[in-house]
């Protein structure tokens, strides 16, 4: 069998010219080199496709619509308190579709009994409801038997936490992965649009703890948080609890990029 890879110049009188028939030597060479190149390309794609990191366990049940009955709390970000089947108070953040928060929608209903319709997102505990389109997706609940008391319980003293600032909607399952450097631009846009920012803290056991962020006065955090999104940060503030949701109140001067 002739050597398919003869030294160069193989046969110097053979010149490949695109509009003339391919010389025999070139033809032989191409028959080996083209499949080899395709194999290298396929191999690289296979290796590369193994680099996806675990995007976490967030889930968006976007094919099944649910109705939640409970008490609405508008601050720092809209959320609804409901009671689960064991009588425990469960908090669910409320957002609009797309990258928009529900603050406007909820402003007049603070501490009212409401019924809210939409689809659920959840990630190991923390939950969110994406409201269905239209004004009627959230409305006062006249039956009034559903009032759930979820007043704030403040801890005393300051805590310091290290983690990543995420937009809660993508992080809880709207996008997989919904955090990290490649998600920074999207998260910034979400937070600009009123999606509640949160701190995701990586625990030693592999789990992730979720802290909703608030301003020191209990209102929404403010625009100063936007440049810090997706970076590693250290936040110091006061921790409080509403139902099963942890909320960290922070001031800009107590937030540092690591």
């Amino acid at each position, binding site marked *: 069998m002739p050597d398919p890879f003869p030294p160069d110049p193989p046969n110097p009188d053979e010149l490949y*010219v695109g509009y003339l028939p391919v010389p025999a030597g070139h033809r032989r060479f191409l028959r080996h080199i083209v499949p080899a190149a*395709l194999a290298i390309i396929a191999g690289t794609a296979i*290796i590369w496709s193994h680099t996806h990191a675990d995007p976490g366990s967030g889930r968006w049940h976007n094919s099944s619509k649910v109705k939640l009955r409970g008490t609405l709390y508008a601050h720092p970000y809209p959320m609804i308190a409901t009671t689960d089947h064991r009588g425990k108070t469960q908090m669910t953040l409320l957002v609009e579709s797309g990258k928009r928060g529900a603050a406007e929608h909820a402003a007049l209903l603070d501490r009212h009994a409401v019924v809210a319709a939409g689809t659920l997102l959840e990630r190991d505990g923390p939950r969110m409801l994406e409201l269905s389109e239209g004004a009627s997706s959230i409305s006062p609940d006249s039956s009034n038997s559903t009032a759930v008391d979820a007043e704030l319980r403040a801890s005393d003293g300051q805590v310091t936490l290290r983690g990543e600032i995420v937009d809660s909607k993508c992080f809880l399952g709207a996008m997989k992965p919904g955090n990290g450097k490649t998600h920074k631009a*999207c998260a910034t846009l*979400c937070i600009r649009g009123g999606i509640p920012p949160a701190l995701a803290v990586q625990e030693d056991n592999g789990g992730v703890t979720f802290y909703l962020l608030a301003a020191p006065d209990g209102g929404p955090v403010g625009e100063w948080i936007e440049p810090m999104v997706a970076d590693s940060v250290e936040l110091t503030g006061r921790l409080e609890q509403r139902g099963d949701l942890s909320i960290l109140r922070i001031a800009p001067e107590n937030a540092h*990029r690591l």
Partner: protein
Amino acid sequence: MSVGYTAIQWSRHKRVYDGIAASAAAIWMAAFLLLGKARWTGSHAVSDEILLIRATGSCAIALLHVILVIGPLARLNRRFLPLLYNRRHLGVMTFLIALLHAILVTGYYHGFGVLNPLLSLLSSSTNFASLRSFPFELPGLLALIILFLMAATSHDFWLRNLSATTWKRLHMLVYAAYGLLIAHVGLGALQNETAPLAPSLMFAGVLTVSTLHLLAGTGEVVKDRGSAPIVNDNDSWIDVGAPHDIPLNRARTVCASGGERIAIFRHENTISAVTNVCAHQGGPLGEGNIIDGCITCPWHGWQYRASDGCSPPPFTEKIATYQVRIIAGRVQVSTKALPPGTAVEPARIPEHADA
């Protein structure tokens, strides 16, 4: 370009080439998407949109690597030249896949929000001082613009209208695009990585591209030095060697003191000299052959008559010619380029000069 030109053969090669290139892209996308879906499943599955964004981005940069290694490979071994022939189609394909990547990113990461997606793309982060939060999308956007300019001007129409030098300069920007894309991936996707696999892959790519360019570049320099000719007559004539040192129907290339390369061809029993630089895209004519009596460029087959540097009719391209003479059994070439298309009497090899 040749007297033997027929449209059917011409397009058949290109069709085969494009078919292979398209299958390479299809293999990449299929492998990437299928394995990506299998890698994490159930509640841990990666979003389809993100898989597509990654598949198109990675496919485009893989094709760019192929484009970048073909040049030096063809320099190192002429048998890679068929891959060079239609490389511009590969370039256009790379641009289109990269464009799809950018459209998907803009729609998915920058859509659905309170800002215009393009505005969001340009303003999402302005933290240029920090490597950690540098807006890696911007180098990607710049690279995409370069790929667009190259794809849009890839047709010979533009080559003619932009002048070969401008066109060549424009197309050298591919290296700028490559650098920008290394930044795009290094400051973007790689910052999410904790495992060494992805950085190693990128390192291997950069290493392959730069090693091949270095090897091919050193080869050229050695060739230039190896042919360093004896200079006589006030630098205006240089020695090329005995007539039969030049292979029949091929050339020896010498480098004049000004740095320009001259290709000296032997055809039948005559010697003629032309510039080494093809009027098309600057291909090395001295590495071509004489086919049908014409000097034929190894890159895309443009042809010139050895006697006057003109393309045979109906073509009108012209290249510079040089005077040649044979003195005492040695070929000498003048270092003064004559205006493109100047007819020069070829030097006849005397009968007794046979080695």
